[in-house]
């Protein structure tokens, strides 16, 4: 089942982003990640409690950039591109 396989792999990146975000914020219950799967790419949308937005972005966007780098590395291994969007 090819589509299932793809979904599972997308799930992995989603779980990684969820884990990182929950570890960074004050309100882990406010963390929500949704993924939009494409053939060669996956778009991950991260929502956090409004009071935590700064925590997942970091000074000069450093934290957000680090999460993107790690998620992209994970995706590259599967021959995919990952885009992380922080929705606020």
């Amino acid at each position, binding site marked *: 089942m090819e589509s299932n396989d793809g979904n599972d792999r997308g799930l992995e990146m989603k*779980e*990684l982003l969820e*884990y*990182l975000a929950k570890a960074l914020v004050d309100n882990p219950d406010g963390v929500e990640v949704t993924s939009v799967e494409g053939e060669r790419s996956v778009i991950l949308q991260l929502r956090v409690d409004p009071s935590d937005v700064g925590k997942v972005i970091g000074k000069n966007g450093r*934290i957000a950039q680090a999460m993107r780098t790690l998620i992209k*590395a*994970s995706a590259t291994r599967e021959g995919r591109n990952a885009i992380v969007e922080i929705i606020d």
Partner: protein
Amino acid sequence: MEALERSVTPKGIVVDIVNLMNLRTRVTSWEDEEEIHVDIWGDDLGILIGKGGATLQALQDLVAVIVRKNCGEDRRIVVDVERYRERKKQKLREYAERMAERAMTTGKAVRLEPMGARERKIVHDAVKDIPGIESKSEGEEPQRRVVISPA
């Protein structure tokens, strides 16, 4: 998240992350008064290092922030993959020694390329005990560089 409660050590956090990345690794850790060092071992971990160590740096930055927040720990966190940082440091030391030799034989100062503070310190330390050689940093960040010259 229950996963986080289970792993509120720097090593545990690294283990969680590499597992979520589906990498087969072994993770070890040591610490002293100044830093906590987490080493990741395994085959084919190039993706965890990334271009010029960028992915490793991202991982270390994230682990450091997560540790500071969740473990009440303020020692420096160093995450390494297959001793990548250590090997890089060693290369830099050897390079510094070669440049010191050049300064000595030519009798002229050697200006190195701009480096970050940590790398500059490695260079200064590498040449500080070489007789007849001195080093200093010049210029403004991020263009600050080490100059090695005959004393």
